[in-house]
C-alpha cells in the first residue's frame, strides 16, 4: 500500500464565498487509476499543490455527487493562497478520504441540531446536501455563529434551509443582535432525544456540549468534529494525536461519550 500517493482532480469552478473563503468544485480523475472520491459525510482529504505541501480540508458537498466534490478554502497561508487563485481546468492533488465521518446511521427521525462556529460551518454544509438529510422526516435546526455577516459562508443557500423541515439561525459577534452560537441554543426548543452535530473551535464545542447536556441531551447523542494539524492522514506522524487517539483515523468526528473518557479531546 502506497499511503502517501496522490490523485489528481481538476478545478471545475472557483467561487468566492466571503472576503477570504472560496469554494472549489473539483472533479476526480488521476494520473494513475482515475478513481473517484468515495467518502462518508464528515471525512476529509489532504489536498495540495506540487511545491506547496498538503493540508487537510473537509469535503463540503454531497457524498452522492459522483466524481464532483467541493471544498471550501479560507486563505490563511502559502498553500491556501495558491488554491484560492486556481481557475477552472487547473489541477490539484489529493489523497484520502480519511477518518470517521458523521453517524448517519443514527438518524431515525429525531430532531437534528447542526451547530457550526466560524469555518466549522463548512463540513456541516455537506451534510445538508445529503439525500438522507434532504428527505429527512424529522426537524433539522441549523445554528451558525460567525464573526460578521460578510464573513458568513454559503449565504445563497440560507433560503433553502428555511422551510417546514428546516430552520436556520445565524448569529454574529460583531453585528446586532450580537452573540455566540450558544446564545441561539439557549432560546431554542428541541426534543431531549435530539442529535447534535457540532463543528467549531474547541472552546465553542466544549461550551456547546455543556449547554446541550444541561438542556437534557445525552452525551451519546452529541457528536463533534475536531480540527488538528494533519500530516500523514494514516495515524503515524503523530501531529494530530490527542492522548491515545489520532484525529485523522479515530476522528475527526467524536462523540460526547468519547469526551467523557478522554477529557482532553476538547
Amino acid at each position, binding site marked *: 500500500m502506497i499511503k502517501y500517493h*496522490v490523485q489528481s482532480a481538476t478545478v471545475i469552478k472557483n467561487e468566492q464565498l466571503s472576503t477570504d473563503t472560496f469554494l472549489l468544485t473539483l472533479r476526480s480523475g488521476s494520473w494513475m487509476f482515475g478513481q473517484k472520491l468515495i467518502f462518508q459525510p464528515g471525512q476529509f482529504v489532504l489536498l495540495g499543490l506540487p511545491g506547496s505541501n498538503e493540508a487537510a480540508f473537509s469535503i463540503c458537498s454531497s457524498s452522492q455527487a459522483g466524481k464532483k466534490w467541493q471544498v471550501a478554502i479560507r486563505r490563511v497561508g502559502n498553500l491556501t493562497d495558491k488554491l484560492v487563485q486556481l481557475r477552472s481546468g487547473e489541477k490539484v492533488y489529493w489523497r484520502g478520504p480519511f477518518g470517521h465521518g458523521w453517524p448517519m446511521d443514527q438518524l431515525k427521525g429525531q430532531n437534528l441540531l447542526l451547530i457550526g462556529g466560524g469555518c466549522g460551518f463548512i463540513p456541516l454544509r455537506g451534510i445538508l446536501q445529503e439525500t438522507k438529510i434532504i428527505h429527512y422526516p424529522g426537524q433539522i435546526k441549523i445554528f451558525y455563529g460567525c464573526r460578521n455577516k460578510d464573513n458568513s459562508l454559503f449565504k445563497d443557500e440560507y433560503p433553502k434551509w428555511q422551510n417546514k423541515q428546516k430552520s436556520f439561525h445565524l448569529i454574529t459577534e460583531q453585528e446586532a443582535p450580537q452573540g455566540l452560537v450558544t446564545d441561539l441554543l439557549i432560546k431554542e426548543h428541541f426534543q431531549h432525544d435530539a442529535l447534535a452535530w457540532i463543528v467549531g473551535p474547541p472552546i465553542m464545542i466544549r461550551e456547546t456540549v455543556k449547554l446541550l447536556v444541561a438542556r437534557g441531551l445525552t452525551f451519546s447523542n452529541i457528536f463533534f468534529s475536531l480540527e488538528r*494539524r494533519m*500530516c500523514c492522514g494514516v495515524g503515524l506522524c503523530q501531529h494530530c494525536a490527542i*492522548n*491515545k487517539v489520532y484525529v485523522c483515523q479515530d476522528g475527526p468526528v467524536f462523540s460526547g461519550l468519547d469526551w467523557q473518557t478522554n477529557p482532553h479531546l476538547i
Partner: protein
Amino acid sequence: MQNQEVLKLFKYLLKKYKIFGPVKESDGVINIKQLKVATEADYSGKIPIESYKRFFLSEQESLFYFRNGRWQLSSQLTDKVALWCLNILDLQAVGLTDLIFTDDIYYQKRRKNSLLIGYSVGAPAAELDYEQFHMEKIDNILEHIPFDIFLEKDNIDQFKIYTGSALGQRIVRAAGILFSERIKFAGMVKEKGPDQIMLKNQKIIEQSLDDPIWLELGKTCTACGKCTAVCPTCFCFELKDQSENSKVIRTRCSSDCFQKDFARVAGDHNFLATSSEKIRFWYEHKFSRIPERYQMPGCVSCLRCHQVCPVDINIIQIWQRLKANYQNNHHD
C-alpha cells in the same frame, strides 16, 4: 574478541554488506560506526548513545516527485547493511517499528536490505542501566524479537550462535559455522497476551492529565528534543515538498513533538504550546498510543533519553512518581 566462529561470520558478511556496529570512542562514548574488522566493535553490551533507527527511517526520504505534470515514484537506492551487535532493547525497538511501518514500502525496502545481528553479554554489570522498569521479565526473549543471527556471549568468552530467519541460517551455513540453534519468531507480543505492567502503566498515563508532575516538568524541560533524536521509538515525521532542479520532491522528513509548530493549525492555534503539554504528549506516545494500537510498550527502557537530557529528566524517577501519585489517588 577472539572467537573464531564470530570472526568467520564477520569476514563472510564483509563481502556482502556494509557493516555497522557499536564502537567505543576515546572519551568512552559508544557510537554506531561502520566496521571493517570485528575487533573494532564494542562487546561490553552497553547501549550506544545513538539508536539504530536511521538505518530504517531516513532523516529525509524522497517518496515521489513531480515533473512535467506528473507524480512519479522515487527510486530507492539503499545499501545492504548488516547491523552488528544490536542489543536486545534495540531489537525490541526494531520489532515495534516493523509493526508500525508494516505496510510502508519505504521502510520495508530499507528493512529488507538490513541484516540484524543481535548480541547479548548476559546480565549487565549495572543492572539498573537495563532495568525493564515498565515490563515483566521475559524468559524466552529471543522468540519475541526480530533478528537474523544472534550472538550470545558467556562469561568465559564463549559464544553461542542462534539464527532467527531463513536468511540468517543460510549465512551461518555459508560462513562455515558448524553449530547454531534456530529460534522461531513468535511475534512481539508474548503468548500469554499483552504485558500486564504495560497495561497498568497505560491506565496510569491516561489518568495523569491533572498530575502536577507535568507542570513541574514543563518548568524544567527546555524542549530541546534531544530525547526524541536518540529514542529508538520516536519516529514523528512530516511530509514536505522540496524543489530540486526542475522537479518537486515530496519528502518524508523526521520531526519531533518538541518543535514549536508541531501541532499548530491555521489561525495560529497551537495544540501543543507549552513544554508541559509537549512532554506529556511524548509520554502518551510511548505509554498510551503505542500500547493501545500495537499491544506492546512504546518504550524499550534503553534510557538514552535520560543520558542525553541536559536538565537530567530521568524517566525512571518520573515513573516512580507517576505510580506513587496514581496510588495515592486511586486505592485499587
